[in-house]
């Protein structure tokens, strides 16, 4: 089986006189060491899909269907809070778009990573500190031993994103859910972060679900992709295939709207 298998996922919110569907029957699988792009515009349901995998939806939302993870007996959607906690972080890590709001401004970043480590593994503070340095080196934060005592505001956007990825890797997950991880960054820094995800894939065999609105990022980073529109996956396939011969009219629209320059413009 694939590492993660989402099958017939439905997410709905209570609305006047019933339920308002936001994700409608999404099925998607991610293999080991694979980077899969989940593409769509704001409101298409791509973030909700990722959040439901870890039972992180807003309390009022209802998720049905099934989510299976290799090595877990039960359905992730049906797990108790205690069971799903073991999956969060340890099996599946999460990286958000806003590297500033996702970090606590009043603690040094190294301390925050240490907390994430100690939440999952028995370690003394000193051991956790050494492990933090190792993780920060892994995500190629320059001068990690010194930077770990910095507060989030002292780091640049790209450095904060590295810290968040380090934190997501703290418990050694098999899969990373990355929600628009480079959207807030300048292009030369975006290139660094995409390169980092690629190197984690080849180095650790990490799988990544890359959620983005940017088809160009998908083209450069992913092997497979799924396009979401109004809560549904309207197209799925190998990236080269989808770009070469998009079957769905919405995918064609999205592809036509991608900014192009140089010879690509003509």
């Amino acid at each position, binding site marked *: 089986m694939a590492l993660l298998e989402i099958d017939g996922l439905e997410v709905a919110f209570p609305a006047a006189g019933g339920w308002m569907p936001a994700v409608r029957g999404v099925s998607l699988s991610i293999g080991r060491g694979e980077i899969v792009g989940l593409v769509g515009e704001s409101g298409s349901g791509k973030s909700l899909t990722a959040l439901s995998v870890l039972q992180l939806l807003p309390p009022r939302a209802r998720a049905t269907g099934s989510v299976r993870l290799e090595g877990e007996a039960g359905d992730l959607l049906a797990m108790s809070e205690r069971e799903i906690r073991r999956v969060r972080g340890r099996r599946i890590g999460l990286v958000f778009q806003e590297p500033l709001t996702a970090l606590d401004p009043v603690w040094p970043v190294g301390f925050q990573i240490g907390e994430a480590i100690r939440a999952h593994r028995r370690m003394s503070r000193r051991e956790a500190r050494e492990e933090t340095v190792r993780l920060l080196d892994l995500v190629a934060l320059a001068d990690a031993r010194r930077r770990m005592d910095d507060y989030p505001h002292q780091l640049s956007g790209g450095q904060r994103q590295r810290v968040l990825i380090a934190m997501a890797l703290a418990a050694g997950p098999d899969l990373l859910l990355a929600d628009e991880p480079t959207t807030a960054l*300048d*292009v*030369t820094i975006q*290139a*660094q972060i995409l390169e980092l995800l690629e190197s984690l894939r080849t180095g650790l065999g990490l799988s990544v679900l890359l959620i983005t609105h940017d088809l160009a990022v998908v083209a450069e980073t992913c092997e497979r992709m799924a396009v979401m529109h109004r809560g549904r996956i309207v197209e799925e396939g190998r990236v*080269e295939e989808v770009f070469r011969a998009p079957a769905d009219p919405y995918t064609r629209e999205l592809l036509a709207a991608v900014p192009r*320059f140089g010879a690509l*413009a003509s």
Partner: protein
Amino acid sequence: MSLLEIAGLRKHFPVRRGLLGRMLGTVRAVDGVDFQVRRGECLALVGESGSGKTTVARCALRLVEPTAGSVRFDGEDLLALGPRELRRRRRRFQMVFQDPYGSLNPRQRIGSVVGEPLEVHESGLGKAERAERVRELLGTVGLPLEMTTRWPHELSGGQRQRVGIARALAAGPDLLVADEPVTALDVSIRGQILTLLEDLRQRLGLSLLLIAHDMAAVERLADRVAVMYLGRIVEVAPSAELFSRPLHPYTVSLLSAVPRPEPGRKRSRIVLGGEPPSPLSPPPGCPFHPRCPIARPRCSQDTPPLAEVEPGHLSACFYSGELTAPGGNLSGARA
């Protein structure tokens, strides 16, 4: 003939701390910039956050006072003008802002937003004439006439940006300065606003100073492009030339880092290490040398001047043209 001529422009911001305002240092946001915008031309300033491109635009309009340098508009030194004269000149150069949500007064109807510059710059107009001009302006930017009575919140992002452009045009400018005019808009709307700007340039003979980081927008509108890094211009070239044959290693890396919707293309991304240095303490020598893939000892000692490498193509690098993107230089290789 140049409409706008910027020479030796510097803008340094002091950084102070505490009650006594102890000086901690100086942020060199713009550190010696020269360029011209010719009549009827569109010049684009590109660069990443913090490169100083917005500060350059603000100095060019004298919205902030430069620390040093000269700004000449149509041959006249703008920095020598008193406040009243400056205001009178302002009708000839107007600004279009990035955020169409923040730049319109929410309590002012669209007709009044567009009509206000007319009150300031053409106080001789009667009420009916002014209303007529507002309707003309709305037509020029492709908005229906009934917009005059609408409020900003009733409009979409694209419509608001059209209002912002109509307001800038109301004064009858020769030069528009557009700071990231499409960045805040949805991808599908961007094209429409770019088409409008293109069309206005041709119909009204406007000159345009475009500040942008979206290369697709730049290539569509700009005749020439100036690339900024850490407060300086590192390369200037005609647009087609810059995109097909960039000479400065920063430009080469920047263009190669823009993701392209072309799966399976040979990876030709140059990934720069590190981050742009702080403008509080720029490195000695070339500002790009700490991240430059081809830096040599000389680069950390001498600052390379912006020099003409080929006719009309300037680059501030001792080794211009030596770095090319692996797998061919972007678009040029395919053309």
